[in-house]
């Protein structure tokens, strides 16, 4: 039980990072972006690539961070991956979604994003191969914190949770204390009104993509660190991400965090009651229950 709780929170914090970007875009641009999860894969693979580059450049960088399986080169690579993924997200918007926004309904964008995700996923598969890989092939053994109730924890996992927490706090500060944050919140509250008040919608949308992409890259990295890299990791994660965003209430950043935790906990705790074969259905049944009580998600407003 304790172990399941811990696992749930761990998976949940990764999902939350990914869901924040998704919920922002879903709210500002009013469409469900199926290609968002592919940004997680992209971020993870960018980090893998630059890890190799940095590792080749300098011997100092291949040293591991204390306690962790993460090397300095990987840590630097993640920063670059964030920037690159953010830029890629903005470029995809420029090429595809921006044109459709002017001409079409939200559903057209949803299916364009579905097409984009097919393209991105399979390009990754062509470039990096279909097999799964790891940043570090050594298995990091978990430390037993407690035998009964059982609780096994890895240093990497603590690191992931702390990282997620730090990023969320930073995001909270940015959103509440800076003009950039104010702009983002204003636009996500009401795009038309924000524009009337002199906010440059185009720039804000770009900012939202970069922010969402950067967070997706970190989420992808955290997921890959704890599990593995694979070209289909985006596909495997996309439904959980949507579930998190929707349970939390579309547009609510804090909702996305809570939604991520709920979905993570749900899939982790569900197996206590239900056979593992039914696992894929569990998060959705919990979502159904949540929506039955709150039709617009936990923090969502009706549009």
């Amino acid at each position, binding site marked *: 039980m304790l172990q399941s709780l811990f696992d749930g929170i761990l998976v949940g914090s990764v999902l939350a990072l990914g869901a924040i970007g998704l919920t922002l875009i879903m709210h500002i641009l009013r469409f469900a972006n199926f290609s968002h999860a592919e940004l997680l894969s992209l971020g993870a693979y960018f980090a893998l690539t630059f890890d190799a580059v940095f590792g080749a450049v300098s011997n100092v960088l291949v040293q591991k961070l204390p306690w962790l399986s993460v090397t300095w080169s990987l840590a630097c690579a993640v920063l670059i991956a964030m920037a690159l993924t953010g830029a890629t997200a903005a470029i995809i918007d420029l090429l595809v979604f921006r*044109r459709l926004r002017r001409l*079409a309904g939200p*559903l057209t964008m949803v*299916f364009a994003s579905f*097409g984009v995700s*097919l*393209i991105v996923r399979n390009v990754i598969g*062509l470039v990096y191969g279909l097999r799964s890989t790891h940043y570090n092939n050594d298995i990091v053994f978990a430390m037993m914190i407690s035998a009964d109730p059982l609780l096994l924890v890895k240093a990497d996992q603590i690191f992931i949770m702390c990282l997620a927490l730090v990023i969320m706090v930073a995001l909270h500060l940015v959103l509440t204390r800076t003009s950039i944050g104010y702009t983002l919140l204003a636009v996500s509250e009401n795009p038309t009104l924000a524009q009337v008040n002199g906010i440059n919608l185009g720039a804000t949308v770009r900012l939202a993509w970069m922010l969402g992409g950067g967070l997706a890259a970190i989420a992808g990295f955290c997921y890959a660190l704890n599990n593995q890299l694979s070209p289909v990791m985006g596909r495997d994660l996309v439904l959980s991400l949507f579930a998190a965003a929707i349970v939390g209430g579309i547009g609510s950043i804090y909702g996305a965090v809570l939604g991520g935790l709920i979905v993570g906990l749900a899939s982790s705790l569900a197996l206590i009651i239900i056979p593992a*074969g039914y696992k894929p259905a569990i998060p*959705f049944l919990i979502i159904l229950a949540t929506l039955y009580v709150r039709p617009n998600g936990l923090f969502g407003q009706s549009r």
Partner: protein
Amino acid sequence: MIGLISYLTFFFTIALILAIAVLGLNLQWGFTGLFNGGVVAFFAAGAYGLIMLGGPARANEFGGFDLPYLIALAGGVLLSGVLALVVGLATTRLRHDYLAIATFGVAIAIESVARNAEYLTGGAKGLRGFERPLEAWVGQPQLYSFLFLCVVIVCLVGVYIALEKLVDSPFGRLLRAVRENERAAQSLGKSPAHIRLTAFVIGAMIMGLSGGLYATFYAFISPQDIAPILTFQIWAMLIVGGSGNNRGAILGTLVVWGGWVGSGWALTAFAPASMQLYAGSIQYILIGCIIVFTLLARPRGLLPERLTTTQYAESSVEKR
């Protein structure tokens, strides 16, 4: 030449079976604005319902009542309808993305049951042993395929005509009103919840019919047939074709399905032998490009919805 005809018979059989499901979705989304993310659940209910009712008995398992084909098919369609009624009653308050994820969850749950509840659905190995109607009587497989295509065409045309009649009637006007502005419709004495539920159930039963025909054609159904990808394929067909337009829905099905499998042909024909192993990934990229570029070129679909006034009065004999 015979090969080409035989293949095209097959291609159109599958495409048109899917087109029926796309028409069902068009009633739900195109006309009523219901974001059904669980198309495959109702497709599955029709398919499994048919084989469970019409198939032979299986040892230690439920189902296999060996009922006459048409009764089994109707039973499958009815099962979809009942499922839609239950799901609709539970989710009728939800809107947009929330409805989509809820119905998607239902589809995943149905797939999970199909995969795990061996007693009921045969589990992951699927259900088989269903006798296709009149197959033995026709004898010749090619002729049978052709006749089956004719039956599918009849079903499609029947559904198409029925839906056109429906959406051209005051009922269709009511559906569009609920799609356009639910609050206004309610303020004008209409009951949106009831209308949404009606459209949801009818659309789901049409999807069930599609699933039933699909299971008839393969005489087999397994959880692999009801993977979430089918929901996406059917949606992509509707959006590419043009939602709110039944002819667009059918055209969209042919284009998306044609592109989906056509990209596979193109690759075996053109890609160098050394690339064949990567053809699978490249095919997916091509499929993605077809969807994206079609939508960029025709954002409202190939045949967008047209603005019409419902003309049902006696005096207006001549249509525009």
